[in-house]
């Protein structure tokens, strides 16, 4: 048995110390980011000229009812006191009650977030599975017919408003062809057939072995996810093309070709391998944007998701709900950033 020498032990402790330091710094910056977000949102929400009490009661409110709701919302307190109370409650794990539902914000978010998560994840899958190959094909066939076709397709995805695509999709695939289901996540006949486990209906129905429910959920999901995925796919394809073009002009590609590598090997083993890190950033950001809630698509398809919830909260000036949503978005972005940082280390040997 060998024992570490004193110098080795000291070195190891120093490394642990550095890691702990880095960890603390990271945690500090995450908390500062989230805190900053909350302060900003709170201030913006409260300085807007909108009156949340009227938003809730309607313009024909009774003055006594106005006073009651005003007090219930804590609006009689100075801004800093309102914010202080909110932060204190957050530290005890309480995000407060949402006015727009009368329920705890956490409970609301747990209900609406899985719906958005499911939609965003399938959309991203479509976007990546279609967008990346299209981008590569466009780059490899630069200025030739496939590149032009892909450019037109992706430009359409970029420029067509997503709600218009959604409505057109409903008219064609739901109303005329009857290929897909209409609004919502599930047909009414399948309500309550699957016990709630994750809130992701596709997953829950698979876990419960309810294949009819699975197909029905997929039928509801496919159109909004495809349209949302199309818009993201356009972005990913364009970015992939430009990343690939930058690589294809490098000398190492020329070297590989001269050495006799097959075209497929040159593209996928050499060029593509080197754009993975950049692509990862793009995909992570796209996912972040999708998970924030695709409000327009959620509205067109009556998808009971996070985007609709957040817009409703904003419309009614429901600060507890708005702040809860902002906090979650902040956590998602920070989380995705950390995840993509971690994946850099896997894909990029220089960071090791």
């Amino acid at each position, binding site marked *: 048995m060998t024992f570490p020498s004193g110098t080795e032990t000291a070195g190891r402790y120093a490394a642990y110390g550095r890691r702990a330091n880095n960890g603390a710094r990271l945690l500090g910056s995450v908390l500062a980011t989230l805190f900053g977000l909350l302060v900003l949102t709170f201030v913006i929400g409260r300085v807007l000229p909108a*009156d949340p009490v*009227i938003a809730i009661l309607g313009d024909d409110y009774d003055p006594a009812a106005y006073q009651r709701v005003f007090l219930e919302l804590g609006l009689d307190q100075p801004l800093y006191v309102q914010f202080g109370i909110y932060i204190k409650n957050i530290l005890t794990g309480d995000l407060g009650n949402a006015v727009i539902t009368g329920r705890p914000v956490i409970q609301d978010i747990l209900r609406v977030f899985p719906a958005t998560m499911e939609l965003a994840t399938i959309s991203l899958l479509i976007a990546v599975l279609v967008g990346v190959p299209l981008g590569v094909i466009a780059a490899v066939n630069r200025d030739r017919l496939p590149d032009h076709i892909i450019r037109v397709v992706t430009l359409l995805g970029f420029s067509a408003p997503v709600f218009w695509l959604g409505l057109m999709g409903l008219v064609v695939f739901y109303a005329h062809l*009857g290929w897909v289901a209409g609004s919502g996540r599930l047909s009414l006949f399948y309500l309550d057939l699957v016990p709630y486990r994750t809130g992701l209906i596709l997953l829950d129905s698979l876990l419960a072995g309810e294949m009819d429910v699975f197909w029905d959920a997929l039928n509801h999901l496919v159109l909004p996810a495809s349209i949302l995925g199309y818009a993201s796919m356009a972005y990913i394809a364009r970015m992939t093309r430009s990343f690939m073009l930058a690589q294809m002009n490098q000398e190492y590609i020329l070297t590989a070709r001269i050495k006799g590598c097959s075209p497929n090997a040159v593209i996928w083993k050499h060029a593509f391998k080197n754009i993975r890190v950049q692509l990862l950033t793009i995909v992570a950001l796209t996912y972040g944007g999708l998970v924030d809630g695709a409000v327009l698509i959620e509205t067109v398809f009556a998808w009971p998701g996070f985007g609709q919830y957040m817009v409703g909260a904003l419309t009614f000036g429901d600060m507890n709900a708005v702040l809860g949503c902002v906090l979650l978005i902040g956590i998602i972005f920070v989380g995705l950033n950390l995840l993509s940082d971690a994946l850099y280390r896997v894909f990029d040997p220089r960071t090791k």
Partner: protein
Amino acid sequence: MFKSNTIAACLLVFAVGAAPDRALAETPSDQLVIGMTLANVLQMDPHDTGSYEKSHISTQMYDRLVEMDPENESILRPLLAESWEFEENGDLVMQLRQDAVFHSGNKVTAEDVVYSLHRPLLGAMNASSTFRDVGFTPENVEELITAEGDYTVRIRRPSDMNLVIFMYSALAQTAGSIVDKQLVLENEVDGDFGNAFLKNNDGGSGPFSLNRWNPNELIVLDRFDDHWLGGSEMSRIFIMHIPEAQAQRLQLERGDIDMAYTLSPSDYASLDANPDIDVQKVIGDGYYHIAMSTDHEILGDPKVRLALRYLVPYDGLQESVMTYFSEPWHQPISRGKVGAFDEDLPVSYDVDKAKELLAEAGYADGMELEILTLSQPPFIDIATAFQESASAAGIDVKVTQGAGSVVYGQMRQREFDLIVGRNLGGKYGDPHSNVASSMYNPDNTEASSLQNYAWRCSFYDEELNAMIEAAAAEQDESKRAEMYHEIQNHYEELGPPFVMIGQRIDPFAVRTNVKGVIRHPSWTTRWDLAVKE
């Protein structure tokens, strides 16, 4: 190879989704599926915040004492109150039916009724304004509304006002919903009159009970088999949140929903031609209008207010924008009510007449005004049409758009020039509904507890107030009709603070195989009467 595999995988994803829909089918014959936007359904307490959509939900969950006939609102029909009479002193005595039970199984008694009629005022809930209008206050309501035995309720007059107006304005509305006193008290927290509990739960005796409410997603109501009416033919009602009007229309056309409540005018126009769908255009409450602040230094002049009346392109607006929003009617009392005129007020777009009036008022060189409006149709269309037509008379109108909480907040603070609105009473079958909203202003101070539309426009006339109070107290219907004619004439002489655009209509679309649902002008449409062929 890789390319073709990828493409195949992508195609598979689409193909799986594009498989023929297994779930599409006609809605079941004993279930009603309704599409509407639920964004304004914030809670389920029938006495608190009310919206068009929520009133419909409350109507199914809660019984009221009486209801108005949807086809003739001046007719009151019994619900929980089997019969009623007015005593000589004006007291209203109501006999309750004895076979009604709440969803909890508790019997509906006079105690529940009295508690329910005290609750809005004592709990400072939004419905309390309808009680205040008649003269009830938190201080006097317990003394004036009392139980006599298990099934008799006595309501004494808080003012000279005829209590039949109270029957229309409160008892027949969702404000008069009867809640389960025992259940509510069991769930009361910090003296909130069970408000927190009823926000998310059911405490009624109506034909349907609340099975589930997922905000902004779905409401499921189950038939209450022990309802005194014997139970609806519909075992369940689904109310689906479909915020996009066109998506609602497509689902209605496909038969995935039976009724659509919140469609846009272009959808109604298209559905009108569909033989499978019946579009009901029911006169609703209130008017689309432009309100003017009489506190404004220029608009305080009645001649200027009258001049603005000639600067609205009525015909063009009606044809192009308002077809499914309003019908031409510009008198202050809604058409068909007691005391309403037979003829409409002659209004027209007449720039010369407007200029003449402005010159008489000393504003021949024009002026600058701001008009506040919601940023949605038809409000914004009315504002921009007015902006353009008023410019012909030298009036420079600045249009400011905003959400309701901004626009109406400014109106409540009486800090505005002009505002496009949709109200002015008419929610019940009595003319008092209109005049109480648009003309009656007994206290024009900032501390007034009655902040109706007349107050918001700082419109105050002592004589008019006295005439309105006298008409509300009058028992003889023909005399009342005459008095309301005089009220309207006097109001016209004063220079009304509103330019009436048209009387509101609330259309809705229903599949023709659904019978028995008659759209109620007072947002209390009964879905329990639905039958499917």
